Structures are given as C-alpha cells and as structure tokens.
C-alpha cells in the first residue's frame, strides 16, 4: 500500500512538472534563426574581436539578421568569407590574406645600445621615457608588448627583436596598434621582399647606431626604377600595391636591409 502511495506521489509530481515544461516549451520558446548556428560554426571561434563584434557568435548573428558584410573575419580569411557568402547568398570580393611584419632588423648584434634600462619591461613604458637604451630611436624596443597582445602567440622575441611567424598570423592587427613605435605593418601574404627598417634618420646617423639600417642610398629604388620602392624621408619604402619581384635588389642593398621573407602559411619565418 505504502509503495503504491509513494509511486503515485513521485509519478504525479513528475507528470505535473512535465506538463509545466510542455506548456513552457510551447509558449515561452525563443525562436533562433538556425542559420546563426551554421554561420557561427563556419567561424574560427577564437573570439579575437577584430571584426568589430563582441566575439564570433555576435558576428554570426549580425551577418544573418542584420546583413553585416561576410568578409569581416580576418583570421578566417578568404575561405571563410567565401563559405559564409555562399551560404548567405551574397557576394564578396576576393581579398588576399594579410600578414603582419616588423619593419626593423636591428637585433642586439646589429643595433647599438647606449645606456642601460631598468624600468618597466613594456614597450609603451619605455617609449614614455625615450626608449630602452637602443641608440636608434625608431627601432624595435624588444620588450614584447606585441607578443603579449598577439592572441595566437605568433610573435617571438629573438635577440631583442620582435619576429612574426607569418604562418601563425591571423591578420587581427592587434600588434599593429600595440607597437608604440609603429613598426608593424599588415602586408599581403604573397609579398616576400621587404625593406626591414623604419628609420627616418639620414645615412650617417643610421650607420652610427645600426649596421643593418636603411641609409637612403637609393640603390634599390633606382634598380626597380621607382616601381615598387619609393624613397620617403630618408627611407626606402616598399609600395605593396605595386608588384615587386626583382630579387636582385637583395644583393644590391649595401646594408643588407632588404630581405626575402615569404608570408605564406606553412613556411617558417
């Protein structure tokens, strides 16, 4: 008899709860567009925020419901953009993957140091007091602020110089805004020739402080007839919008500032 009463009480309670849940599921259900989940699954899911939305899920929601552009996800690159565009039935222009590169080659062996630095180990703090003793006032401080900002650990400090592994770079651009000396640039991955210097000083001054700095001799710019390399404020600047494949300029540079660094995935820095 007891057993029967207990079974009825428990069973009854269960039935009542089930009824409540059934009603709630019918009337309080939140209808989510199933496409949001599909788009969300297409995104890398690292929540870097480069697209301008608070994470991948938010971006997916905006793409589906408010028609945000399909090619905003930089880590995903053109592949993701194409898949989202195909799914949503929109068109995106084909764009090349961008990778970050540090335009400085002055590691501890190449660049001179004048004084010691015993402040905070942060590039921004060092810049506030005029640098960390590196004689070149334009060069990489090597205190790893960019490496700490990188969400995927693509930046390594090698002998006092930040080096970016292009294969790991997700094009988020966080390092670009972190560098207080503005040494990092986003460049198309197919480009492999770079002038690795940002010094605006004149040649003799550059020679005094760094053995691999651009001395504005203009040899490289002349070699390519100004097509792809322009001289600006005592510095040879690569124009990444114009094709440049002339590999002979690497040997022409007396300071060995120009280097071939492929930016494609899979190759080492």
């Amino acid at each position: 008899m007891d057993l029967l009463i207990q079974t009825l009480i428990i069973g009854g309670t269960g039935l009542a709860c089930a009824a409540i849940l059934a009603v709630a599921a019918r009337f309080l259900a939140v209808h989510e567009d199933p496409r949001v989940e599909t788009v969300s699954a297409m995104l890398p899911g690292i929540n870097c925020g480069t697209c301008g939305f608070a994470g991948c899920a938010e971006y997916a929601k905006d793409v589906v419901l408010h028609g945000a552009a399909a090619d905003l996800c930089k880590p995903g690159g053109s592949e993701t953009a194409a898949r989202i565009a195909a799914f949503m039935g929109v068109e995106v222009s084909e764009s090349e993957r961008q990778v970050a590169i540090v335009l400085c080659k002055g590691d501890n062996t190449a660049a001179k140091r004048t004084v010691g630095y015993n402040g905070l180990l942060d590039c921004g703090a060092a810049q506030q007091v005029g640098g960390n003793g590196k004689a070149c006032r334009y060069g990489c401080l090597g205190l790893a602020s960019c490496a700490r900002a990188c969400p995927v650990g693509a930046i390594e400090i090698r002998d006092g110089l930040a080096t970016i592994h292009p294969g790991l770079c997700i094009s988020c651009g966080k390092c670009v805004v972190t560098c207080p000396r503005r040494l990092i640039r986003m460049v198309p991955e197919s480009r492999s020739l770079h002038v690795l210097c940002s010094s605006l000083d004149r040649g003799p001054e550059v020679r005094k402080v760094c053995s691999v700095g651009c001395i504005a001799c203009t040899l490289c710019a002349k070699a390519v007839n100004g097509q792809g390399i322009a001289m600006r404020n005592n510095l040879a600047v690569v124009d990444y919008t114009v094709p440049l494949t002339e590999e002979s300029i690497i040997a022409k540079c007396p300071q060995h500032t120009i280097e071939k660094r492929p930016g494609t995935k899979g190759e080492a820095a």
Partner: protein
Amino acid sequence: MKTLRALFNPRGGIHPAYHKEATDSTRVEVMPVPKTLYVALNQHLGAPSRPVVKKGDTVLRGQPLAESAGYVSSWVHAPTSGIIKAVESRLTAGGQLATVVEIEANGADQAIESPAPATDWRVMQTRELVDLILQAGVIGMGGAGFPTQVKLLPPPGKTIETLVINGAECEPYLTADHRLMVEESARISQGIQIVQRILGATKVRVAIEDNKPEAIAAMESALKMAEGDIQLVVVKTKYPQGAEKQLIYSCTRREVPSGGLPMDVGALVENVGTAAAISDAVFLRRPLTERVLTVTGDAVANPKNVLARVGTSFRDLIGFCGGLRGPVGKVICGGPMMGVAQSSLDVGMNKTTSGLLLLSRSQVHQYTSTPCIGCGRCVQACPSSLLPCFLSENLEAENFEEAERLNVLDCIECGACAFECPAHRPLVQHMRQGKAKVIQLRRQRETKASRKEKAT
C-alpha cells in the same frame, strides 16, 4: 608681514635623505654661454610652440624662436645671439621627440633691443601685464611647466583669494630655489607683488621648508615692508611638501577636490623662480632665457648652483662643474624623485630643469620587483590618499575601469609609494602608464558619446 609655522601638515609623505649640503651654501655661478645650444619647443605643458625661424637665420638674444600655438602654450626665445643650425625633431630632456632649435653661438651674446618700460606697471591694465608675461615665455619653473599666463586668467566666476608662493623645494639634492631665495629675494618679492595685483589676491603665503633658515631670513627681510595680508609660512620638511595641492593644504587647510584645480579652492601656486621671471618680464621686458639649476651628485667633481642659458647641453653643464669623478650610474634631469633619467648628454636643458643629478655607479641599484605583500606602506605614504598597491595590481592586469574608479588620475607621480615599497614594485611607472591609458579611454568614450548624439 608675519612669519608663522604651518599649522597644518598634508597627509602621507616620506623622509628621504636630502643630500643638500653639497650645494646649499655655495653661491650661484654664472655659466659662460656655450658654443652650441639646443632649445626644445615642448618645454611647457600644452601645445608645442610653432617655430618662427628657419635654418641659417641669424638671431639675437631674446628674439622669439617660436610662438605660442594655442591657448595653453608659450613663446620660446633665443638664449644667445648666433646662427640657427637646425630646426628638427630630436630627443628632448623629457624623453620625448620634439622640434629642437640648434643655435651656434657667435660669442657676442648681443641682446635684442627691448622697448624701455614706458609706463609704471602699477597703472597698467591686468591684461597688458598678462600679455607681457605671455610674450616673455614665462612658464611654471617648479617642474611641470604650465604656461603662467593661463593660470593668471582664471575663468569668470572663479576668484583667487590666496596666492601661494612655493619655496618649499622638497626634492632631495636640489638647492636652486633655495639659493635664488637667498640671493634674489628682491626680484622674487617684486614678482609676488605683480602676480598679486593681476589676480587681486587678498592673501599671500610664501611657503618655505624649515630646513632652509637662510632662505627664510632672506625672504623675511625682502618682504618686511610689504603691506597687506602677507605671511611667510614655515612648513615642515618632508617630501612632497612642495607639491601644489599639498602646499595649498599646508597654507590654507583647504583640500583641492579630486579632479579639480587649485582655483576651485580659491588658491594659486607659483614657484619662486616663476616669480623672479615675472619680475624680469615686467620690469626689464626681458624674456625667460636663463635659469638657476643645481648640478650635483656623487659623480660630479664640483657640485654647483649654476645660472645657465636655456638650451645648454648637459655635457656642457657637467664640463662647467669640473667634469666627472668616477663612473656614472645614472644621469637624471631634475631631482631623484621626479626627475627623468637621460639616455644622452647632448640634450639641452629646459626652462623647467631645476637640477642635473649624476649618481655614481655604486649608488644605482637594479631591483627586481616581487608580488605585493599587502603591507600598506604605500597607502600610508601616498599624499593623494590613493591605494597604490591595488592600483598597481589592477593596472598590471590592464583593468583600467577599476583603476579609474580608484582615482588613478589623482596620482601626482611623486614616487613616495615606490620609495617605501619593500617589494620594489614599479608603482610610479604603473601609474604613469595607467594615467595615459585612462585618459585615452576617456577620450574614446567622449567621441563615442558625441557621435551617438549626432546620430540621434
């Protein structure tokens, strides 16, 4: 005039070793004009001055090199006669890159003819007096370099009732203001009278720390005949007694509110050096092109108080003081607490450079910082009633909203917390970076808000 002991004492503070004995009784020596001078155009707070000379120009002493480029800005004048060698971006004493005018002195040191003071300053309009001060390029000479004319024109609705003259000089090692008070007390007292007239201030408080009896005696005799409510306030020796807000508290027992200015409590602080410069600007129509500074420290052969031209390089200053004695560990522009370590000696001194400190290698220690042990000594030391330990932890974790809530912007960067910290945490550096970041975030927030307003 009365001489009083300060009845009030600001909170916090520290008692570092003062090391003033090397130079506090040596007379100010006039340094001959060096061959090359490097005059920076960002010596004051606010917009850097706009250059009005170019490479190859010949200038006379006192001729403008750069004009004021905004409301909070100032003029810069040639410290000697010579040829402009360069006008370009270089490293300055503050550690920043800025436009620097390099002058090669021609040795004649010929001054530009200044118009003789036609009228008595007592009958001149307030605005005319302020213009004279602006055109003489007078800025706060205590260290911050706030353009003086801006302070002298309070916005309508604010009245300044108390003028505080800062002769505290609480930074260790420095004796420049001390010697100026001893030797040039008449000029300072003239400057005080001018500022008092411009502001219409009813009370004047001249604050001097009690470790400078000579300066107190000199200022007493200079101000003896002064009329009105003038008091010489002898304040307790401690660091940072000479900080603006702390000195106002010592003299008036009024606390400047968080985020506020001294004028919010009806006070204004001028350094004794600024008062002397104002006197020159009005009486002699002479722009500010030289100042007294202390060249001192273990590593310098003959520590001295030097009257040097603005733009004199640190190398020349050291040379004038007999060169170096042994290896140098650190070169600091300013005092040891708030000064800026230098990476190059070929940098010109500013109007705000009150000292050049050369520490020997054995005096400089490299500390490694360890985690906060929660002892609270920094909280006791902080003159702004902040919690440096929590602030530093939040700033290290880049939690800027919390730092803003803990009033990081009220930090005066005096370094008392870092001096006391047994874990050697880089508290001041954290604060400095945090302040910059919080100001940046605030600006972003404001632009966002204004954009939203425009959209609706």
